[in-house]
């Protein structure tokens, strides 16, 4: 991992050196990412961010990666402040621990944009804008997708649902689960959520959890998973038990495997969240801030519903 990180950092430093030489752009925008390479989403995000910055003549980008390490991210924030960039985008490694560094940038007069996952509320005063997905809405939309399907099937008065949530303690996991649990009784008051267990964003773990659910409950009509990766794990378990045909699978963050399973008619729906949109929205938010435009503090980019019915309108996710 260290080798790769070094490579990324070196490339980033080299591109910064080039910024100094060219100096034609209006804005220099620095970004410190959470952990590129840990999953496909973050890897694609970085590529899309660099591509978007290169395509924009107004912008030069300094792209850094914290490698999941809070201390390194704080050091990178300080480097960016030293380099006196025009704006800093941060994908927090930890919502609490980065606040002092964010405050330091704010005090130095550099606007800070948080991307993808927000920092803790105590730090909001030092942040100009948050650009990212609205996870509560995503959870709510998943509930709507599932409810609509139950109504179509005519089982909205008796259906039983289980939930496989993300890693306990993660904001994204908590917000999606909360959105789902709040919205489901509003749209389908007679559907019962019988149990929630964490799948830790891990396909294998989710498969084991689903195996236990299948033993425990004779009647499962729907499975909501915090992301498609876990959803496909649950689907695998149901297929092995010959019960996949009776169950409606709904996820979030449409992965390529989820998209393919939808194409095969095994997986009903998800939320389309593109790392490309995420990266481009973050860069655009930073540019808008520097242009002096009025932007909302919570600047969500849209994450639409995707189901077997409308999937042809979406490109297959690259991750």
């Amino acid at each position, binding site marked *: *991992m260290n080798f790769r990180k070094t490579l990324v950092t070196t490339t980033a430093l080299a591109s910064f050196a080039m910024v100094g030489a060219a100096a034609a752009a209006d804005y220099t925008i620095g970004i410190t990412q959470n952990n590129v390479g840990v999953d496909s989403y973050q890897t694609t995000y970085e590529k899309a961010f660099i591509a978007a910055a290169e395509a924009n003549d107004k912008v030069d980008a300094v792209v850094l990666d914290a490698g999941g390490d809070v201390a390194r991210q704080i050091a990178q924030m300080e480097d960016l402040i030293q380099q006196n960039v025009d704006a800093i985008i941060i994908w927090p490694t930890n919502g609490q621990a980065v606040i002092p560094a964010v405050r330091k940038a704010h005090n130095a007069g550099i606007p800070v944009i948080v991307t993808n996952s927000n920092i803790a509320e105590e730090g909001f005063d030092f942040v100009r804008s948050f650009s990212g997905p609205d996870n509560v809405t995503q959870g709510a939309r998943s509930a709507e997708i599932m409810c609509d399907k139950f109504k179509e099937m005519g089982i909205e008065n008796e259906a039983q649902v289980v939930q496989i949530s993300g890693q306990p303690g993660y904001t994204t996991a908590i917000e999606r689960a909360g959105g789902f649990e709040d919205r489901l009784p509003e749209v389908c008051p007679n559907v019962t959520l019988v149990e929630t267990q964490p799948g830790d964003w891990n396909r294998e773990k989710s498969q084991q959890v689903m195996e236990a659910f299948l033993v425990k409950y004779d009647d499962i009509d729907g499975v909501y998973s915090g992301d498609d990766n876990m959803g496909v794990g649950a689907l695998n378990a149901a297929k092995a038990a010959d019960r996949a045909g009776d169950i409606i699978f709904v996820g979030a963050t449409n992965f*390529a495997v989820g998209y393919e399973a939808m194409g095969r008619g095994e997986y009903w729906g998800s939320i389309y969240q593109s790392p490309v949109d995420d990266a481009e929205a973050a860069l655009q938010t930073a540019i808008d801030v520097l242009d002096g435009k009025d932007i909302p503090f919570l600047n969500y980019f849209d994450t639409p519903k995707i189901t077997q019915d409308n999937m042809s309108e979406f490109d297959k996710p690259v991750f």
Partner: protein
Amino acid sequence: MAQSHLKAVGEILAKHGILVAFILFMIAFALLNPRFINSDNLLGVVRSSAILGVMAIGVTFVVVSGNLDLSVGSMMSFSTIVVLDLHDKLGPLLGIPAMFAMTMALGALIGFLVGYLKLNSLIVTLGMLSAIHGLTLTYSGGKNMDIADKDGTWFGFFGQGELLGVPVPILMFALLAAGLTLVLSKTPFGRKVYAVGGNGVAATFSGIPRARIVFYCYLISSFCVAMAGLIQASRSLGSQNTVGQGLELQVLAAVILGGASLLGGSGTIFKTVIGVLILGFIQNGLLLVGLEFYVQYIVTWVIIILAVWLDIAAKRGQLWSPIA
């Protein structure tokens, strides 16, 4: 007469305290939710424990030889990702042996560092834990790896197939356990593993090639990891880069729970298998009982510590240590 019977029972208890603990937990879970002993559930748990089990069998060799292996989780991610990638590039017939060769090359490297260079195994394998993770990410570019044509391949056989009504992962787990039990308990090599772990200096003076024995233990461990990666990849036909993350501690927990000494020189494959099954059934049992999942983390470890205590108490014949 009756007394000698009692004595015999006592001896069995002392020898197999962990087995008794295992049976007690099974009865407790079955009382709490009768579905727990449904044969589908039992087979399902053993099947999903097979991955952890196969790895734990290999690590037993390393632990008995007096060393540690913390790299098996990362190494399992590596072999899973590699075999999935090679499946599409070379085809499964070539891809599987190629993955075994690559994984065992890593095992050979660790064996060389710990055996021949006599570096501390904790540091070496802790370093390899993150180095191999980096290797996996570099190899895959951070992307999830998936087999393109999931319906048109026989590769799912190792993880999802059945032979004579028994899931293939269980068969592989059982065969490996039986084979390596013979190696560890019945061959000169196996005796040397115990000798090296029990007293390395004495073993050296007895003419046992200590470095070579340790080297082979790591080679066996990496072979088992490759097998676990094969089952894992075949089970889901796709994987994240982090699939094995954290498994190293569960594997060690299973081995130690089975009664192997961290200091080396003791432990058997059979007891490790019991350790693996305890971990697997605790996880499944708590899910079926329906405990709030935050509580599950705590209860899991309470049960494990209870099991270890029962095991030790049976060995020394009393609950408390006579020497305070």
